[in-house]
């Protein structure tokens, strides 16, 4: 039988054309182009069915719905859930309205989030930290009390610190889809909602540890690793073992000669592709337990990748120039010579995408 390939559809995102299969979401199409135009995603998680739509970080503007019906969509849409149409034109970082909305989302997510990355275990591999770096402002307009919770042990391996949770629901989907029984969920509503087990219960089954990997922030952390180290001092190495329960493909995190943490492998988008079991994650912490494959290809979103937070590695795009403009005020107060974007050679900004903020020459 002949292989019937579906007709590809053509989409333009930030002026760059890409061909994808029908049914692909805008976010996935943008990821296909590359990190420069991929919208940030704080709740969507490709391996988890039903995820997405909640954080609104990935909002984009659809300037033309399709070739057949080129009208723009009236509102910004969640790119993680909106399917592309042939001839669709999408504006991501090139649209000031999108940048403004994302600015707002960072601000909203940080309202009730502690600003204490220096004492958070997730710092350095936190989606929220990255998102705030890319789209946040340096000041806050919120002066009220933040909601806080006591830390809670949910079983022998996992600690929940609800204060840091951004209610992305990823851990809920993970427990539903990866483990054989979900015992936690979202309780309450509005900004009083919380992740919990209702009557304090241990989350305990072979795959429960995966909730740690999917959590975009430091709300769910590995008790066997908590505060042992900072991620940027550790060295990730890919390894595998013959595991009767899972694929056994993991990343080992070394400090010197010691394996101090085991996680599932994450792709470029910080998503786990193959979930691992608790035995691999929590009980196998000797090099001799593993067959070493070699150093992990560090993803762009890791602070371990060189100069992640250096301003001059910034991609020249509309949003980043806007961000650069925002940096100016802090020059008076601090030595931020590192951040001095103004001193970048002008060529860096030469090939920018059409800007809606500045008049055409």
């Amino acid at each position, binding site marked *: 039988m002949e292989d019937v390939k579906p007709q590809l559809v053509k989409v333009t995102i930030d002026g760059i054309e890409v061909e994808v299969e029908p049914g692909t979401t805008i976010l996935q199409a943008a990821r296909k182009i590359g990190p420069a135009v991929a919208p940030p995603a704080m709740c969507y998680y490709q391996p988890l069915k039903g995820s*997405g*739509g*909640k*954080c*609104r*970080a990935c*909002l984009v503007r659809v300037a033309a719905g399709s070739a057949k019906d080129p009208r723009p969509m009236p*509102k*910004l849409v*969640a790119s993680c*859930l909106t399917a592309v149409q042939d001839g669709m034109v999408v504006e991501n970082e090139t649209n000031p309205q999108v940048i*403004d*909305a994302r*600015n*707002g*989302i960072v*601000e*909203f*997510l940080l*309202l*009730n989030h502690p600003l204490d990355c220096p004492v958070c275990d997730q710092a350095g591999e936190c989606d929220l930290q990255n998102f705030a770096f890319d789209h946040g402002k340096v000041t806050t*307009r*919120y002066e*009220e009390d933040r909601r806080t919770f006591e830390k809670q042990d949910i079983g022998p391996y996992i600690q929940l610190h609800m204060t840091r949770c*951004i*209610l992305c*629901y990823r851990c809920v989907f993970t427990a539903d889809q990866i483990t054989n029984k979900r015992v936690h*969920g*979202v309780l*309450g*509503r*509005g*900004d*009083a*909602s919380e992740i919990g087990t209702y009557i304090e219960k241990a989350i305990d089954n072979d795959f429960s540890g995966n909730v740690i990997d999917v959590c975009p922030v430091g709300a769910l952390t590995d008790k066997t690793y908590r505060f042992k180290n900072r991620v940027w001092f550790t060295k990730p190495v890919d390894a595998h073992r013959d595991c009767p329960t899972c694929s056994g493909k993991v990343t080992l995190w070394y400090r010197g000669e010691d394996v101090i943490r085991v996680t599932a492998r994450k792709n470029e988008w910080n998503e786990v592709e193959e979930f691992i079991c608790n035995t691999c994650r929590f009980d196998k912490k000797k090099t001799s337990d593993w067959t070493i494959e070699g150093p992990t290809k560090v993803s762009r979103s890791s602070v371990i990748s060189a100069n992640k937070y250096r301003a001059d590695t910034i991609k020249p795009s509309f949003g980043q120039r806007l961000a650069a403009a925002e940096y100016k005020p802090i020059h008076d107060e601090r030595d931020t010579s590192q951040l001095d974007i103004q001193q970048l050679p002008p060529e860096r900004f030469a090939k920018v995408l059409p800007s809606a903020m500045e008049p055409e020459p």
Partner: protein
Amino acid sequence: MAIKILTEHINVPGIESFDVYRKQGGYTAVEKAIKTMTPDAIVEEVKKAGVRGRGGAGFPMGMKWSFLAKPEGVPRYLVCNADESEPGTFKDHYLMKNIPHLLIEGMIISSFALGANKSFIYVRGELMYVIHILEKAIAEAKAKGFLGKNILGSGYDLELVVQPGGGAYICGEETALLESLEGKRGNPRNKPPFPAVKGLYQSPTVVNNVESIATTAWIVNNGGDAYAAVGIGRSTGTKLISASGHINKPGVYEIELGVPVEDFIYADEWCGGIRTGHKFKALVAGGSSVPILPANLALTLANGEKRLMSYESLSDGGFATGTMLGSGGFIVFDETSCIVRNTWNFSRFYHHESCGQCSPCREGTGWMEKVLHRIEYGHGHQQDIDLLVDVSKKIEGNTICPLGDAAAWPVASAIRHFRDEFQWHIDHPSEATQPGAVYKGEMALV
């Protein structure tokens, strides 16, 4: 005598019972529909009638019905939205408790038209006594052969289920309602897919408001054209208005769409005027989520013409000078009302009722409430008014369901039209926080 489509018999003693309702001509529409009409013919009449959804969004009911997907071998559902929780709206409650059989009759006709064999009425949980009234009415109708198996010997089966809600405003949003009906947490779904394609239990579903469904009995009896002849332009038929606030005669009134707002407020037939000795300051015309208008804009359009009680006229001028008919929750404020306090009060409601799924609404509603609270209590800062406008803009349009908009609009509109009053609170905190203090500056009182 003004035409009454829904409430003609509502004051007949004993109308809540099957026998009295039947004597007033009740269930003749079911007989006509099931014995003499095809489902498609009923849909056609509803389309012709041009009834627009009475739950708030005003989407044409016939069009919604014709979008219902009809795949083979998959059940279809009709769900009646009786969650009515919007502050200022209490018309469905009134209809259901007084004349329950009108809704039951509408449910039978609508279910038959849509090909649903199991239909649901999702009732606001606080209205337990109404649930008992509906259940009694259903039992009566069943005993008389209008519900259950083989209705009136036609071979058509229908089971009607009354489901109490758990006390959440958000479960009035149609997809949250469906989640709740399925026994899950009432989080609105991302759309598409729309309920007409994947609704209850992933099957094609129509969700309609109580008042919308109740119109179908009259439409079947009198024809869609007769219904469309009532009202004005694309605002056909009558509408139940829940009138409350500083008027002489609060209550639920059925009006023909197109009555001037001024007549509705001042005529004895309806609100009977602003409470004696006071002046008209502001109006929320369609439930707490629609933009508030100052008295002058409530009564007249920007071009000086009279504003009418219709979808088009109320929204004339967009949000700059207009508002929305919404669900018909008509709240009148006189000069003793503090707009800041009222806005804070609305804001508190939306903060409390947000499901918390999406970040702009979860975090933004609480933030707005806190800022409004501090302005009202004399701790406002100069930049707070602009902050509120900015936060409301960052919520509006960026959320999964319209609750985000519903929270943003009252705040944005109150500042748009009553900015001086907010400013006064910030500039004169000690004066503004005196008990009963209200802004007395320049404004258009009528």
